[in-house]
């Protein structure tokens, strides 16, 4: 009998992941044992404390460059940077999720499974406290994302994908208002997400087959093996291409890239707005973190093969996002299409085969996360008796009613439009520069052209808010509670600071832009 060798585990490097998953499990216990009226506070504090502790561990491990736990997890520059970004953005999302003063009982219902529009359902919509299960669910999702951006083999990546996706499906169904829309969103997201996961898994299997038969190496799905296989595998490249394509489908689905984007507007609209913001910020970071790792570590030597295809996907994504954003009449759907277009710009950065491309993409992810969180935070505040007033026509004259919040939203929209002195401009520069350097002029031109189209819907909202007269139905802006106000301010200040003095974060991203293999 051969002796079993246990893999060495670097617990310190894994601490952020362990803290988040541990806190999630603890959260489940809190649900079982803590009295109902105290649960909200305990859960929120627990989740926030866990995120902060994990963040501290990420910062402490900033210099780590290692592969641990038997090659399953790689803690390197990009992993740490993206984990840090996910944790900061998740903390802001948690603040939005925990807000209970804007709407009585919070943005979530107690029981998602009650038939929509039934008497029970209406009763629970009337200010009954929402489910506190959202906190463990969110914490699980954050933990999964932390693994996702650090996974060093395709199977670990798949498991992480499921760990963060499943809670998100549930969270989508918990909106207090417009229950049917929320349930529909969750269903749609779940079904399509399940397909995407299946594609990903099938891709893993094909790549595994491709790695078989390299001299001196066992078959496997860790990135080093895949990398070696791309160079010297005797297997048919059809396996590689098909595997790569299926993996890409799985990841691009999460990243909301066309033509795998169709779920985005429905889910963004139907999900409770704090959850939408969490998805728009954190899921995006996680998905692109994984895309960067898969294509820069595992398939780096096949760049000639995937760049044209992914380039077409990027152009299509920018185009679809920008053009369809023009026709939107709902602010959440508009932001959804804008997030699709942004996925296209991010892909431009992913395709630049250099450290500058990686650091640019990471900078973009962080900067965009802050802005989009702030945008959704404002959306949660613009309400009337029926909850959030998301139809654009309702925003007419908002600038007169509440100049402060309309001003903030205008600033965020200008950032999305890429006006200088906002992070939207510096981050566009951060991805377009390396792309042009790599000779992808066509991607940059497509990016610039779609930016022009995209400016129009943003501007339309600005016009609505400032240049239209307030009408009878113009909603008021609720004074935010401390939690939302904090998240909003962090987002706005970050958008400004990253636009005016981007150098510190940019340097951090540049230093972190090397993967270990």
């Amino acid at each position: 009998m051969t002796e079993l060798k246990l893999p060495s585990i670097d617990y310190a490097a894994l601490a952020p992941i362990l803290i988040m998953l541990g806190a999630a499990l603890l959260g489940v216990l809190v649900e079982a044992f803590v009295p109902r009226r105290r649960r909200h506070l305990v859960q929120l504090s627990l989740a926030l404390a866990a995120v902060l502790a994990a963040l501290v561990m990420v910062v402490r491990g900033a210099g780590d460059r290692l592969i641990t736990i038997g090659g399953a997890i790689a803690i390197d520059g990009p992993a740490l940077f993206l984990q840090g970004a996910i944790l900061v953005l998740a903390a802001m999302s948690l603040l939005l999720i925990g807000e209970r003063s804007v709407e009585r009982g919070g943005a979530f219902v107690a029981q998602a499974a009650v038939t929509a529009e039934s008497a029970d359902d209406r009763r629970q919509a009337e200010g009954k406290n929402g489910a506190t299960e959202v906190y463990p669910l969110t914490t699980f999702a954050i933990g999964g994302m932390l693994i996702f951006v650090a996974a060093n083999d395709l199977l670990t990546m798949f498991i992480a994908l499921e760990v963060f996706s499943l809670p998100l499906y549930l969270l989508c169904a918990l909106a207090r208002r417009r229950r049917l829309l929320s349930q529909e969103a969750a269903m749609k997201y779940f079904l399509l997400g399940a397909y995407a996961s299946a594609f990903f898994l099938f891709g893993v299997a094909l790549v595994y087959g491709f790695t078989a038969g390299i001299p001196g190496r066992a078959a496997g799905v860790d990135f080093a093996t895949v990398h070696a296989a791309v160079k010297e595998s005797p297997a048919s490249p059809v396996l590689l291409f098909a595997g790569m394509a299926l993996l890409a489908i799985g990841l691009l689905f999460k990243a909301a890239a066309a033509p795998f984007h169709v779920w985005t507007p429905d889910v963004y609209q139907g999900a409770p707005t704090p959850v939408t913001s969490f998805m728009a910020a954190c899921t995006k970071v996680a998905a692109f973190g994984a895309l960067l790792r898969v294509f820069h570590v595992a398939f780096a030597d096949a760049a000639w093969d995937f760049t044209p295809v992914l380039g077409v996907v990027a152009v299509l994504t920018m185009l679809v996002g920008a053009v369809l954003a023009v026709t939107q009449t709902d602010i959440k759907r508009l932001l959804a299409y804008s997030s699709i277009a942004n996925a296209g710009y991010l892909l431009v950065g992913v395709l630049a085969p250099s450290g500058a491309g990686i650091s640019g993409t990471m900078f973009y992810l962080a900067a965009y996360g802050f802005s989009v969180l702030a945008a959704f935070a404002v959306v949660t505040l613009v309400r009337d008796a029926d909850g959030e007033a998301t139809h654009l026509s309702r925003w007419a004259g908002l600038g007169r009613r509440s100049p402060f919040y309309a001003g903030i939203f205008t600033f965020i929209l200008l950032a999305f439009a890429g006006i200088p002195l906002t992070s939207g401009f510096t981050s566009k520069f951060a991805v377009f520069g390396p792309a042009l350097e790599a000779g992808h002029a066509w991607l940059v031109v497509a990016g610039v052209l779609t930016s022009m189209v995209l400016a129009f819907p943003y501007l339309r909202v600005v016009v609505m808010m400032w240049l239209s007269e307030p009408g009878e139905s113009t909603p008021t802006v609720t004074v935010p509670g401390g939690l939302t106000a904090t998240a909003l301010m962090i987002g706005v200040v970050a958008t400004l600071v990253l636009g005016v003095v981007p150098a510190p974060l940019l340097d951090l991203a540049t230093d972190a832009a090397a993967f270990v293999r």
Partner: protein
Amino acid sequence: MSDFPFLSVLTVAPLVGALVVAFLPRRRPELAKQVAFAWSLLVLVLSVVMWVSFQVDGDRLQFRESYPWIPTWGVSFTFAADGIALVMLMLIAVLVPLVILASWHDAEASKRSVPVYFALLLILESTMIGVFAAADVFLFYVFFEVMLVPMYFLIGSYGGHQRQYAAVKFFLYSLVGGLFMLAAVIGLWVVGGKTFDWQTLTQVDISTGTERWLFLGFFLAFAIKAPFFPFHTWLPDAGGAAPAGAAALLVGVLDKVGTFGILRYCLPLFPEASKWFAPWALALGLIGIIYAALLAVGQSDLKRLVSYTSIAHFGFIGVGIFAFTTQAGTGAVLYMLNHGLATGLLFLVVGMLIARRGSALIKDFGGAGKLVPLLAGVLFFAGLASLALPGTAPFVSEFLVLIGTFTVNKPVAVIATLGIILAAAYVLWMIQRTTQGTLNPELTEVEAMRRDLSLREKVVVAPLIALIVLLGFYPKPVTDVINPAVQATMQDVGKTDPAPEVGSVQEASQ
């Protein structure tokens, strides 16, 4: 004194002023106006000091300052001014206080916050100064784009009829141009070895194909901004809808960023491409001169009419730049200044007329000179300056452009001269229909039409009239500053003047 950081202080000062004004209590609009006016006077004084300390025979770029900003990308806050920029900075410093004074009661009419209006004007001044003072391409781009935001709100919030449409059209047109330029800026950064420093970039060798693409990116942005035919359609809408003061700044200064950009960026950075595209640019200029003048004749709205005359004048400036002679180039830069003064005056006077009548339509006037003789007289003078009557400043510049072009390209000069005749047509006909002829009986019923120029309005127009006459007879102080910068620019393009004509610059300008 030349060690004083003029340019950065000039850029920041109005911004600080804007913050002060914006936070003044809304209930005391008078205070906001006074502070804004005082602040803009301060900027004017500082600009005059800078003008005096500029050494005419010194370096091409003076008052250079540089502070690191984003080292990773090689971006720095670099400011420097050549003679061309200096003239434009001076124009801004002169126009803004006058515009503030002229807009004294404009904001109240719109029922919106008065302090914010003046704060926006000061923010606009800050960004306009920045765009002319920047010597770092990235910094220039930042100001170029940010400049849109205050102007957008000035038009959209305080403008007249169709202001929303005009504001959005203005913003989108400019943004489209700006984004093309962004692609070119990034391209320039990549081929230029990751620096944005203007002086370093002028030394870079770029392959012909790349150079042409980059030139196109910049040129498109500037042609939309200027605007040249066929990118001009936003200007009549924006100029027609903007409040008169903002319109004066829009056409008087903001649009000059386009022609300035061509001189500062297109020509020195892409000399080969500039020569290659010159025939096209000349053609666009000529079409603009004739086409816009014809459209101006047919306008029924006063502010739109003035906007179209400006498009025709920008055609002249374009021709002057792309003729590639020092004379024509100096003429073009002088034109930028004089047009700012003359059209600025025209816009302000027209604004005073419109404010009295409550309508911008020409048919609502008629014989107004009988009611407000002084105002009508100023309008007449502004009109004559605008059609470049000898003795007014625009004549000198137009003449320089035409003879400078004639020495190298006779057909272009001949066609451009037709523009002068058309200018006489649209200006004189406009004046005839508004202030001359029989008195429109409706006018007498408007109470405000009986008030002639107030003291405030006299103070607004007097300096402009004085400058237009002064520079009409004695442009030397300005041409002395412009000439070396234009000569250096033409050297960058590798064009030298035809031998016999060199001396005539002096003759014409004296």
